[in-house]
């Protein structure tokens, strides 16, 4: 190949490969918009007050809503948060305060492990630990599973956000004769608060979107129930059931419910990104 030809070939290859990368991006973003578009267009008929205020209609009938599933999801997430948030938060504080040592390193590693465990496996564990002894599916079992899912995310964000606070504030606090724990709780945590807070919300968003760990813990319930030791409905299991149902009307409700779910999750995610980007530069 002559030099000129080689040069042309190189130029051509350059242009081709660069446009391939651009096309990959377009494809990926295209998929995102495709999913959003379908969610809106298919669910639009049912995105209304009925969906969030009505109980599910009897099998085969049109209409109805998922009021019990929304309340159920909230109860499940509240149960998970009740222990997931404190454990995640304080474990994160511990890791931020303790950089070295085998225990801190192990816990840090296990946080990553926990983060990587498939949610269905966590459901199995919740089944063994809560459902088997109680001999019934229950909101408690679902909450237990969701709590485990929330912990690693909260732990990691807490540790990272605390580390982003310049050490000079911590030193200033200690040098004033403020005990370490008060410096942490009243000087450093307030400075890291926004990031940690949104991290917690993000983990709540993740928990609300989970289905797999609820399938054989909270199970689902077509009726109104707020009993913690009884099976309970949730938005995601509602979508799962309605998606597989042979009624077009129910399928549309599943799309509408997905729309609400996506909006919830997106808003929390975008807030999180916005908050974590502007951090201290001091």
């Amino acid at each position, binding site marked *: 190949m002559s030099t000129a030809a080689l040069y042309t070939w190189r130029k051509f290859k350059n242009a081709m490969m660069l446009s391939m990368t651009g096309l990959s991006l377009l494809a990926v973003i295209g998929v995102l918009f495709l999913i959003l578009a379908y969610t809106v267009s298919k669910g639009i008929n049912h995105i209304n007050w009925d969906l969030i205020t009505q109980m599910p209609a009897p099998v085969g009938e049109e209409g109805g809503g998922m009021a019990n599933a929304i309340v159920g999801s909230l109860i499940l997430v509240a149960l998970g948060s009740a222990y997931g948030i404190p454990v995640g938060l304080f474990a994160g504080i511990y890791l931020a305060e303790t950089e070295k040592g085998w225990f801190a390193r192990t816990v840090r590693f296990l946080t990553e492990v926990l983060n990587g465990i498939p949610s269905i496996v966590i459901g199995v*564990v919740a089944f063994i630990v809560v459902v088997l002894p109680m001999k019934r599916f229950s909101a408690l079992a679902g909450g237990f599973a969701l709590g485990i899912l929330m912990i690693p995310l909260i732990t990691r964000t807490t540790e990272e956000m605390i580390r982003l606070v310049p050490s000079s504030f911590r030193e200033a606090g200690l040098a004033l004769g403020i005990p370490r724990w008060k410096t942490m709780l009243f000087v450093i945590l307030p400075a890291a608060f926004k990031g940690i807070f949104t991290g917690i919300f993000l983990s709540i968003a993740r928990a609300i979107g989970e289905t797999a760990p609820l399938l054989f813990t909270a199970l689902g319930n077509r009726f109104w129930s707020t009993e913690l030791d009884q099976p309970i409905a949730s938005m995601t299991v509602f979508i799962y059931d309605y998606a597989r149902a042979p009624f077009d009307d129910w399928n549309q409700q599943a799309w509408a419910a997905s729309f609400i779910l996506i909006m919830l999750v997106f808003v929390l995610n975008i807030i999180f990104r916005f908050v974590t980007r502007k951090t201290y530069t001091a």
Partner: protein
Amino acid sequence: MSLSMQDHNDQRSGQQAVRPAARALSLGGMFRKNPGDLIFENVTRFFAFIVLALVVLMVYEMTVQSWPSIQHFGFSFVSSSDWDPVNDLYGALPFIYGTLFSSLGALLLAVPLSVGVAIFLSEIAPGWLEQPLSMLVELLAAIPSIVYGLFGIFVMVPWLQTDIQPFLIEEFGWMPLFEGAPYGFGMLAAILILTIMILPIITSISRDVMRAIPDTQREAAMALGATRWEAIRIVLTGSKSGILSAALLGLGRAVGETMAVTMVIGNSADISISVLNPAHTMASVLANEFAEATSQLYVSSLIEIALLLFVMTLILNAIARGIVWRITKRYGAVAA
């Protein structure tokens, strides 16, 4: 307590005599650490311990509960393909096969696509555009699995059934990979949905890894007359191990992904080479059968599958984290 403290002080001061008069003045001598700090440290350590205890508890409980199955079937559990609840016979091979097939297939498609996107984000996109584009890609990761499943059932599966699969059968039907009838539901749908789901994580880690490569390398290549793409090739060579770890993390996600796969894979415990046939994964069989499992051995076998799944993701994550850790040591911070 006070005695040992005294010893320690003497040691610390070396030959320096301890002056009793001065020491007597010290009122708070009991507390060399702040008591509040001591309590706080132990409280936070306790919560950190809960994290550790949870993981130990998970492994322990799953092992105990799957013990009947482990004892009953031994190694044949993973080598047998008989999954027959009616006769209480359980072999998990079809699920392991399905999990590996779907995950590796998704990885095969997702890696080139992700690396392409990562190149665009880190090397080509102008600064002001990069953040919003990255955010859009990462939003894909925020969509709940169940919504992907819904999209799979109502959009992807019909599209595969009417447009894609007939075409594949027509053109490539002679290959075992594309043999069969156009069901829509099946391995192909699972692979495609998994591809979308693991794209964001592979993309964002690859992008971070590429960005960590010093600009001097790009400039050196450009200065030698390399085209933009040739310079990027050099960056890619430097980020090889980082992209590998991104791929492994993506694989970990794919292996554990449940809802979306369960909804589109067709749920059939057959081992088939064709991507057109329905299949099952470890996660999908759990989602489908766990709540209805009746016999004790049945439940135990399902739990053993969960345990295997746990071990698989643990290994994948550990290797990937190990690689990231090594890169971080070499180049400084890589957000992963």
